């Protein structure tokens, strides 16, 4: 399907570059969200249309809003309907990659007789009949770039490990590796994994019940070992020390509980907020 700004339709078309219909406008703001892992893209369209006849045609179901979407990388070409005046479409993972062009369009979903929109140019005469599928309005083509700009990988310095050697329902913190390793028995590990993936409340609960004591334990080991230097051979040290310096956590004057909470951005507040939201 070809939508060109140089095309002349045998009926009035509302478009930013056209004088077919005066005193009215059609404009679409397009945003997108890209899920990095699966390369799944969701496109959101928010439309502003102030031409009364076309608005009424959409409201009555005789016209439809959508976008013609083209992606060279994947060969995707489709006239996709969108909710009006706002709507989101979630495309299949991998359907859109690289440069994607999006042309907002309003077209006739039914035959429209005696079409004579307000503000129509006199050269179109009295009225015209519009067949199904004919274009009624166009906006400028827009482009999104689905390919992510390179984001420096942010590798976690913490990991949890299931271990048969840890007492049931407890955990141990091991700072003697490149990552701070939290070991726990299999059932506790499963519980923590489930809580991490369940919802915001459970994720916040884990933050408070596991990560706060883990950070306290790390800080405690730093104090007891005489400072950060003892861990210089481990990669986790540098981001951890940077974080302490950024937040003015003085290793000489540590308050384990409050400093651990500061380093984790006061996770209890998030729990409060979530509980408040639930109650509301």
């Amino acid at each position, binding site marked *: 399907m*070809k939508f060109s700004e140089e095309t002349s339709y045998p009926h009035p078309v509302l478009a930013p570059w056209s004088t*077919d219909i005066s005193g009215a406008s059609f404009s679409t703001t397009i945003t997108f969200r890209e*899920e990095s892992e699966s390369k799944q893209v969701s496109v959101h369209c928010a439309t502003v249309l102030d031409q009364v006849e076309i608005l009424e045609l959409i409201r009555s179901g005789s016209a439809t809003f959508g976008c013609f979407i083209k992606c060279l990388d994947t060969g995707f070409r489709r006239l996709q309907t969108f909710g009006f005046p706002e709507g989101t479409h979630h495309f299949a993972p991998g359907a859109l990659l690289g440069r994607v062009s999006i042309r907002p369009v309003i077209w006739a979903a039914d035959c429209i007789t005696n079409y004579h929109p307000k503000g129509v140019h006199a050269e179109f005469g009295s009225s015209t009949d519009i067949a199904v599928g004919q274009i009624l309005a166009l906006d400028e083509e827009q482009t999104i770039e689905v390919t992510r700009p390179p984001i420096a990988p942010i590798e976690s310095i913490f990991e949890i490990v299931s271990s048969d050697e840890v007492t049931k329902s407890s955990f141990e913190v091991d700072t003697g590796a490149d990552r701070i390793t939290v070991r726990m028995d299999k059932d506790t590990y499963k519980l923590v994994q489930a809580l991490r993936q369940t919802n915001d409340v459970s994720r916040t609960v884990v933050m408070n019940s596991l990560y706060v004591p883990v950070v306290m334990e790390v800080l405690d080991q730093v104090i007891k070992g005489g400072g950060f230097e003892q861990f210089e051979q481990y990669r986790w040290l540098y981001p951890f020390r940077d974080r302490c310096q950024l937040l003015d956590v003085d290793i000489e004057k540590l308050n384990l509980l409050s400093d651990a909470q500061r380093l984790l951005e006061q996770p209890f507040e998030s729990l409060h907020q979530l509980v408040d939201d639930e109650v509301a």
Partner: protein
Amino acid sequence: MTEIEFLFNQANKVEGLAFAGFETFRGSPYKSCARETGQNSRDASIGKGPVKVSFNLLKLERADIPFADRLQHAIECCLQSPHDEKTRQHLERAHEQITSPVIKVLEISDTNTTGLTGPTDDPGSVFAALVKGDGVTNKSDPTSAGSYGIGKNAAYAVSDLQTVIYSTRYIDKASGHAKFAAQGRLRLISHVDGGQKFSAEGYWGNAGFNAIEDEEEVPTWVTRADVGASIFSVGFREHDDWIERMALSLATNFFLAIDRKEIEFSVGDGQFKLNRSSLDGILHSAELEAIASDIDQVSDLERARRLLECIRSEVTGRHDICIPGLGNFTLHLLVGEGLPREVHILRNGIYITDNFVKFGQPMKSFPGTREFIAVLEPAQGPSGEAPSRLLKRLENPAHDEFEPERIVDPRELQTARSKIKALITEVRRIIRSVAKIDDMDHSQLEELSHLFAQGGADENYQGDDGERDPERFRYGDARRNGRSEPSGVSGEGRGSRGRGPETPIRPRTRTGSAGRNNERTAGTRHAIPLEAVRSIVSDPINGRERVIFFTPGADDDIELSIAAAGLSGDVALKIVHSDIGTVVNGRLRTSVRTRQRASIKVTFDEPFVGPIELAAVEVKK
């Protein structure tokens, strides 16, 4: 001569207002009326385009109600019969309505349906089942959404007079011709009139409780032009927000049928038009949100939005579930953060419920799974018919629960239980498999990465909308592409539409093709920019004549070529005649003056009524 007749009450039966069929819907009359009547129309589809249903309020002069005096008299007789306070209040409200100079009538009318097929005196006909049947379904389709024939009573729940008129135009099977039929039914209380004992139940129609089949005998507001059915709720209880309440009910129950273009609604003389194009706007409208909040149905509205997203999303997995000995279901399963872990059951595109609680399956707990939302429905097509029939048999009259005990035969009941349990087991298996929580023996705690990243805590981790999960999602705005340059600038020699009149139109030299028929032109030729190009098909039947308008950007002799704008490229159109200039090789040669609007009538060698593109080049002197 039409008249109201009440049944005799030889048994001296005491009948009050609280008829069970009406009471079912009394608690939410507008919501129920919209859903039940919409469902009846949906089930009577002729399958050619969406069923269209409109809900409009008529305000009729009392004189236009042919039975007003008789009904007033009957209500007055009822008021003289023994009754309680609640009944008195109701009857007084009814009396007030029928003595009013203006009578309110809610008209519910459908098209693209079969109508209420007759013969009207055949007890097995749809018309008879709807007008005179109690506890019998009027659906010819066993997979239809209605179950018990109780839904028709919802129209009475919005009538202060408890009076409903049915009117239809249907195709008579025997003759193949369209036939008209109308009849009214009302239910007051048992009463005595002139010493004769009458039942609560009465009918408006021809003598002997017969339907009216001559349109001349009914007022014009009862007649119908097209095949379909109309239901008139006489003495409509007009609440301030009845339109919004009905629109909300239709949007939250029929969203899938609407999205699939199976049905469209218009409520309140088009104040709400629910169709595929308008559905999103309505589901997110402030008006509906406000009314949903007022009547505590925000959760219904939010659920409809979520389920529609689930159905439409291309991320949603579609899983066919085959239940041996029954048929196929489809599970639409969308896994994603923030979703509520719910399975919702729809049938015929209409929302039913989110549980099988009467089968011991509340479907509220899905341990060990990530967040998801799912829609379960009988498969579309023949393989889903038996599952749809089974669900229909299990539905309660309110269409919001599945109840196994509704199947009376013990063996059938046992079979139904086992099939539903097999279905639920399979649904759970699919959800566990697709939405399972990753089961590894070690895992990085990515949720702490942003706090302890190399280079500081707060770099690069806040999304555009403040959401803290940069690794997972990226948000962005689309970039507007540059507008195409007008022809004189691009050198393509094509028309450009609508630059401002003050903008200078610059010519540009181009080499090569002057048209779109791939003929090469030797030498260098100037493309002539054309502004505000328009065209109209002057004779759409013939299709060969077109008037073109443009404003040239130069004084020159030009050669004008016209191309049909095709799906992927352009195809040259051959001009055979023009009212000015001369035609050479299918192109038009004429003189133009800069900024002077040109209007030329051309004739093509073959019909073409689609979009075109124009190109002009100078003619070498």
